[in-house]
């Protein structure tokens, strides 16, 4: 299903993202989907910088910059105030990185989700602490290089499954999306906007400096992540109803991994192991979607 992407722009040129930053492009699409009556909350992350230093702002909507671990709580507070003022039109969107979501912000996020607070929480996931210089987070994939998981001891644990965590809260809506599929991304944010209660969007955002890819490869890599089943596009409604939005071509993960310098140390048998993990997770997801 194709969705017309609105023409209105709520993000200006002059922002401070690196060339090829998928997180910047994602914000542009997200705001197109949500429109001008949106308050954006940005916990500490690359976007604390991208939005522009004082006295500039690259966003045309109100922005509240907040501390690292507070996304879930601040979103709750803003929404509570708007409710008390009788404002039912304004959408509150928390825009947090993977560190602020998977790690330090998980407690406040879980609290807000369990209370079913009425706002949209977007995690733009570039799979490491990119703003501080590529340190591993619990969103960093298995065997990836980062500056705290050097190639002599790459990350030894799999990426945390944040959507399953959110689904376990039985929130009205959780979905994955990525910039290679902008219509899907916009549609999911529009769908989220129409729902009430806690809504969670997980965006995979390739990061050229952190993933060791050329900036022009961001879109291609994000497409390969989907097509190799590393990052399937799907939705979970009420924590139970799974819908896979795109049947991947099922290309080998090797094609995805070999484009990225952060995986350049991988031996063939390690790539094989990753392939097995991806296949197993995909079967598991398909099982959820069938139920």
């Amino acid at each position, binding site marked *: 299903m194709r969705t017309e992407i609105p023409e209105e722009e709520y993000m200006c040129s002059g922002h401070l993202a690196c060339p090829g930053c998928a997180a910047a492009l994602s914000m542009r699409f997200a705001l197109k989907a949500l429109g001008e009556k949106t308050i954006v909350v940005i916990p500490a992350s690359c976007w604390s910088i991208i939005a522009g230093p004082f006295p500039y702002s690259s966003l045309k909507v109100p*922005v509240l*910059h907040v501390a690292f671990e507070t996304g879930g*709580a601040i979103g*709750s*507070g803003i929404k509570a*105030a708007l409710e008390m003022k009788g404002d039912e039109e*304004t959408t509150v969107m928390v825009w947090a990185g993977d560190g602020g979501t998977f790690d330090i912000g998980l407690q406040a996020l879980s*609290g807000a989700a369990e*209370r079913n607070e009425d706002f949209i929480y977007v995690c733009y996931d570039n799979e490491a602490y990119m703003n501080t210089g590529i340190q591993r987070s619990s969103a960093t994939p298995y065997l990836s290089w980062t500056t705290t998981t050097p190639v002599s001891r790459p990350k030894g644990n799999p990426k945390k499954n944040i959507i399953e965590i959110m689904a376990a809260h039985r929130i009205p809506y959780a979905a994955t999306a990525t910039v290679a599929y902008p219509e899907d991304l916009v549609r999911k944010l529009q769908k989220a906007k129409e729902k009430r209660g806690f809504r969670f969007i997980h965006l995979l955002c390739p990061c050229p400096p952190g993933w060791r890819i050329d900036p022009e490869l961001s879109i291609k890599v994000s497409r390969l992540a989907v097509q190799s089943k590393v990052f399937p596009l799907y939705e979970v409604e009420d924590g139970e109803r799974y819908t896979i939005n795109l049947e991947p071509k099922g290309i080998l993960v090797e094609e995805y991994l070999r484009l990225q310098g952060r995986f350049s140390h991988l031996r063939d048998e390690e790539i094989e192991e990753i392939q097995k993990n991806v296949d197993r997770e995909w079967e598991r997801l398909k099982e959820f979607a069938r139920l």
Partner: protein
Amino acid sequence: MKKVLTGNQAVAYGVSLARVEVISAYPITPQTTIVEYLAELCADGVLEARFITVESEHSAMASLIGASAAGARTFTATSSHGLALMHEMLHWASGARLPIVMVNVNRALGPPWNIWSDQIDSLSQRDTGWIQFYCENNQEVLDTIIQAYRIAEEVSLPVMVVLDAFFLSHTSEPVEIPEEREVERFLPPYRPKFKLDVKDPHSFYLMTPPEYFQEYRYKIQKAMERAKEVIKEVDALYASNFGRGYGVIEPYLCEDAELILITTGTVTSTSREVIRAMREEGRAVGLLKLRMFRPFPSEELREVLGGVRKVAVIDRNLSPGVGGIFAQEIRAALSEDGASPRLFGFVTGLGGRDIIPELISQAIRYSLEREEPEGRVLWLGMRGEKEVIL
């Protein structure tokens, strides 16, 4: 209307009268009943407010930062470890210039576990940019909360209202409850100068380089300096409307005193009795209650203590390696005068130990009998010890 209320009930009445719009809180002994009372008031519709049952104190303060930035009048209450967990957010609230009001029930920090009165929790938040009041009784608690909103919203700084664990939080006293309409007149609805508004979009708290940052801090200092005057004005106005005022400090029998005892919180009430009795015995002693801790009333203290030979301070707190924190602050304030009084710094009552009249008179006698203290930290009421030890 007069009611018999615990300190925590007085808090709930104060918050209710202030017509708070968003409350966010997490339970911790001995603050818990505040949360319970407020949850009931909200559930019953007596107080038209959103109550956010957050998963931590850190999120309690964070959510109020969001709510206040969106223009709501906000409240939380905590204690001890809860306040310590909030620490980062306390800096954020003041840096963001949000008029959040919080009650802290003074309690010790572990380990070892202790749930009783001790001022180390709030005093550890000294440098976070919050206005701080230490209350002596439940009436003062209720009145100070109402004053706090008017002050906070006038100077755009958060306010912490502090009361002693159990000695106030769980002790019932008669409290005069002001009329709703009169409080509405005294405290009009909150009208923020700036807020999150899709019709007037602004970015808040964004990355600010060295070229601009210092001016932000300068403005907080200026706001604190102005707050001192605003606090006095608000207190005077409150006194004229409701018949009760407290001042930023309160001297008692300080005229011609050779020694002035300085106290905070509930120990002030006990000390007032001791001082009165000692005056009757002919001893030239006075009492000074410190109510406002931030901004620190340096000039006001110097005015009262200027010609006095000796000052004794009772601290229900300890900054290890220094001693009592109030003594430290008072020393600093007095050092700006040429002939500053000799200061005797007593530490006692930690973790809720009773500060009985005998201990207070022991401290006063010790100070009267000596030209100078035998150490910078004088320990009072130690187990098995009859005298002050070093």
